[in-house]
């Protein structure tokens, strides 16, 4: 296809709007409502053009190029019309600064005088000069507004966390409405009322908190004016540096752009292009980074315990002290806990240090209780043909999606965006979840099973599928015969009783699965984090295999996969993280090197505790030495995201206090303990060794990582397709008289190392406080509990505290709580959910009772 724009011949391969074609060829057309990721809206009319042989002035943002078109973008009449349109827009916008003859001279002072309630001009606007309206005024050289000015006197909305909304500055471009609806699927914003009353708003003008907002900030980022603005930024001066990094707050691994001034982070936004996130992030990456890096809880100096008190000392003294004490222990007496939130380099060194210097195989980490490990175990045990790598964008290509064990918009926000894309393109979504999720609005079927009954649920789905299918040709697949036979044992009346799911839901799901060509089965920690997790997975695997669909394991931590690979290939002889926790309490472990998460250790019987971490918490009271570790923002390193993508990042600010990168600390310590081979100069030297020693990283050089965002963990997929016979599992312990409620644990990564993000952000606490104990309205009524009441949650394995949050999303009899490794000693679910009878599992369904606390 050929078109001519302003006399320039342009060749086009695919369907494009005139505006896109012009932009790509360096021809600028003024525009305000258009946005490259959003559907055309044609609201502002600034992008009008003239097309030879056509009447009128069509908007170029919604007019598609056709072969042979001759387009003019800057005729005098177009420019005149545009100026008039812009003047109309400006008549309802504070315009004094825009048309002020002194505006250039006043530019440098702008940032100092804009801390005001109402914006009455650009000098007082929180937009910090990133204003598209200003740009258009400049481009069209508008220097007067001939229409009377209108001030709409709309109230400035400040009741929500993170951002303010001042619709007096709104030009009704609709970008926020579209991004929220089309890209995020939250549909919190709409155009409300009409004509001169039209305003962007929420249902009944409620706060965003009550309108399904994810607080992703996407609306703030696309707003061309200062109408939507990040509150915390209003009180800051202008940034002097912008740098790219990778978000450490979940397994998506979003590319972020961090603004800082004098070595202090001011804000973080999605990088506009590229990365898995392509211009999107979630509330954590958008609003939480600065709070955690500059948390007042940061540990900034090495400390050792002298005369019962922790005292600040030099690195040399601290390391000498730790080295000397640690040398006394070896083998089974000592354990190290690593983290899946620190870099590959850090994890590699922690592993090497444990084996060489601590002389132990007790290297525990949250990796062993992750969906990745459960999945890998199943694959290996059964010899299945299945890899861990995938590409996030493959998810949007599926026609049927099946989700279990994750609340995607919260736990895996970017995966959610891909699922939404698929659904908008006509794919069907099936959700298996005891709780009602916000994304259920997009689901064709919601299987509301009782907690912990997935084996029966998935297996009966397989049965229903096989019954409605003509001939799937499965018999050539190994194990099909015995699998089919094993399903005979499943009787519907029993399944209905176990799962609580009615027959028609099974039939509907089977039908959807039959219709869809490609399928994706997504699962998170909610499915695997319990003793029958492997069986849940086997049942899901069978269902997926019937459809030749693939399983997508969705881990939580940002570098879960990286930490997993650093340990891959080593024997599993040592203790797992839950076993370490029990062993430090029974006294069989005498020394603990804590470089990762572990709940409250107040009652631990250990002789020597070293904490290597970034944030203070209650465990420090027990520590003999505390070694301050840098955060991701102050280090170079690599994370491997949920897809298996290896992402290298660089520090965005300098080191804080005396904190040092984890790899630096542990290798220095190894040297002090007299071990060779720890003389790394920098992170790159560690990576060099990783690519030599770790199979998943073979042939992955630093240069490659620096220049390519498409580097994946090297994996060989062996094995074969195979069905696994169905075996009934014991449903979660019947909730008896003593513990009448079932607590089901949500897995959202609301912590970074040993910091609970809610500790540092009131905003996040308003959205989802990690101390909430969510209960159904029915149970709240029965127990006479109100929102905010303090309660004690009691279970066979211990007690914890929390605050009541009544939520209609929960069924009667089920209590919801968020998983956190540790916050402070009176609150942690972890001890409750470690069960001594299972290795490598955290129970996510715990029978409890709830009492009012003090």
């Amino acid at each position, binding site marked *: 296809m050929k078109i001519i724009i302003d006399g320039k011949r342009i060749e086009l391969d695919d369907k494009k709007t005139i505006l896109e074609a012009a932009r790509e060829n360096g021809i600028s057309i003024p525009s305000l409502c258009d946005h490259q990721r959003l*559907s055309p809206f044609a609201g502002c009319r600034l992008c009008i053009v003239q097309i030879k042989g056509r009447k009128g002035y069509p908007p170029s943002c919604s007019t598609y190029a056709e072969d042979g078109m001759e387009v003019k973008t800057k005729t005098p009449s177009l420019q005149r019309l545009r100026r008039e349109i812009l003047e109309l827009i400006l008549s309802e916008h504070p315009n004094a600064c825009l048309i002020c003859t002194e505006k250039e001279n006043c530019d440098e002072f702008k940032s100092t005088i804009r801390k005001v309630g109402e914006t009455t001009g650009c000098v007082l606007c929180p937009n910090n000069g990133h204003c598209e309206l200003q740009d258009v005024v400049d481009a069209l050289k508008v220097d007067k507004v001939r229409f009377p000015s209108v001030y709409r006197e709309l109230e400035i909305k400040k009741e929500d966390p993170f951002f303010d909304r001042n619709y007096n500055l709104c030009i009704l471009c609709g970008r926020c409405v579209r991004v929220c*609806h089309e890209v995020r699927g939250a*549909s919190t*914003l*709409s155009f*409300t009322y*009409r004509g001169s009353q039209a305003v962007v708003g929420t249902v*009944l003008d409620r706060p965003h908190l009550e309108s*399904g907002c994810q607080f992703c900030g996407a609306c703030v980022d696309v707003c061309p004016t200062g109408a939507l603005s990040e509150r915390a930024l209003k009180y800051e001066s202008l940034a002097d540096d912008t740098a790219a990094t990778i978000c450490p707050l979940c397994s998506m691994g979003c590319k972020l752009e961090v603004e800082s001034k004098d070595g202090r982070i001011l804000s973080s936004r999605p990088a506009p292009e590229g990365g898995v996130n392509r211009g999107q992030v979630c509330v954590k990456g958008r609003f939480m980074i600065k709070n955690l890096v500059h948390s007042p809880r940061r540990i900034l100096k090495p400390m050792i315990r002298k005369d019962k008190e922790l005292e600040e000392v030099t690195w040399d003294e601290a390391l000498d002290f730790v080295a000397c004490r640690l040398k006394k222990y070896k083998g089974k007496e000592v354990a190290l806990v690593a983290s899946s939130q620190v870099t590959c380099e850090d994890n590699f060194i922690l592993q090497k240090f444990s084996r060489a210097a601590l002389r132990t195989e007790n290297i525990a980490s949250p990796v062993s209780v992750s969906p990745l490990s459960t999945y890998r175990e199943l694959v290996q045990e059964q010899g299945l043909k299945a890899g861990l790598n995938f590409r996030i964008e493959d998810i949007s290509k599926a026609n049927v999606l099946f989700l279990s064990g994750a609340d995607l918009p919260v736990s895996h926000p970017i995966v959610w965006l891909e699922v939404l894309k698929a659904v908008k393109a006509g794919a069907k979504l099936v959700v298996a979840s005891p709780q009602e999720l916000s994304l259920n*609005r997009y689901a064709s079927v919601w299987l509301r099973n009782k907690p912990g009954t997935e084996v029966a649920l998935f297996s009966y789905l397989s049965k229903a599928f096989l019954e409605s299918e003509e001939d799937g040709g499965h018999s050539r697949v190994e194990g099909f015969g015995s699998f089919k036979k094993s399903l005979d044992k499943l009787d519907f009346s029993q399944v209905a009783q176990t799962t609580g799911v009615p027959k028609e839901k099974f039939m509907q799901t089977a039908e959807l699965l039959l219709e869809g060509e490609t399928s994706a089965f997504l699962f998170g920690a909610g499915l695997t984090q319990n003793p029958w997790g492997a069986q849940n997975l086997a049942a899901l695997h069978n269902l997926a295999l019937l459809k030749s669909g693939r399983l997508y394991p969705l881990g939580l931590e940002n570098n879960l996969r990286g930490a997993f690979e650093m340990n891959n290939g080593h024997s599993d002889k040592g203790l797992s993280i839950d076993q370490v926790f029990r062993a430090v309490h029974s006294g069989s472990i005498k020394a603990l090197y804590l470089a990762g998460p572990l709940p409250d250790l107040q009652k631990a019987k250990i002789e020597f505790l070293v904490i290597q971490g970034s944030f203070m918490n209650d465990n420090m009271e027990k520590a003999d030495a505390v070694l301050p570790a840098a955060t991701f923002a102050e280090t170079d390193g690599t994370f491997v995201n949920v897809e298996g993508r290896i992402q290298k990042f660089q520090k965005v600010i300098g080191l804080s206090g005396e904190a040092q990168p984890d790899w630096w600390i542990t290798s220095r310590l190894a040297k002090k303990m007299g071990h060779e081979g720890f003389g790394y100069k920098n992170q790159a030297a560690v990576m060099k060794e990783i690519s030599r020693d770790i199979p998943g990283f073979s042939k992955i050089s630093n240069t490659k990582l620096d220049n390519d965002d498409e580097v994946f963990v090297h994996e060989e997929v062996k094995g074969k397709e195979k069905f696994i016979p169905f075996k009934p599992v014991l449903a979660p312990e019947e909730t008896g008289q003593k513990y009448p409620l079932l607590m089901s644990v949500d897995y959202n990564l609301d912590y970074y190392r040993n910091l609970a993000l809610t500790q540092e952000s009131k905003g996040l606490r308003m959205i989802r406080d990690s101390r909430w104990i969510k209960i159904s309205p029915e149970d709240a009524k029965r127990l006479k509990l109100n929102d905010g009441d303090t309660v004690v949650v009691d279970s066979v394995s211990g007690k914890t505290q929390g605050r009541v949050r009544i939520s209609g999303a929960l069924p009667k009899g089920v209590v919801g709580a968020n998983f956190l490794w540790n916050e402070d000693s009176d609150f942690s679910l972890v001890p409750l959910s470690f069960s001594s009878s299972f290795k490598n599992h955290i129970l996510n369904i715990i029978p409890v009772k709830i009492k009012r606390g003090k």
Partner: protein
Amino acid sequence: MEKSVDELEKDQRELIHVLHDVQEEFGYIPAQAISQISKQLKISESEIFGVLTFYKAFSLKPRGEHLITICVGTACHVRGAPMILDEFERKLGIKAGETSEDNQFTLETVNCVGACALGPIAIADGEYHGQLKTRKVDKIIDKLMSTKRNGSD
């Protein structure tokens, strides 16, 4: 690859249909209904709110037994609609957009009902009164008072 336009239009029509039913049933759209419709039609509450505030036919507050709508479109305006509106406001003791305390009358305005030649126009419980004069206002109100409103119109 978005949902086809047809489907979108269908959803929209369905929503308007449901909103109409609710409006008929209760005389207004209660907040509770918005959340129920949202669950049923799988449309967000904010979107529903956007649609229902777009159309004057829906109201968020309970309406009176009788609904009087005065056209204030351009044609009616020049033919004296403001005076007619004034008269209604005075007689009923309420302003446009309000409902009388005894819940008998709701007075509303609308922009052009497409019968400009007959302006000024008032619509009383669905009945059009064209070429209206202020002195006819009493009569219209009396007539409404004497009829019990049944169903929609």
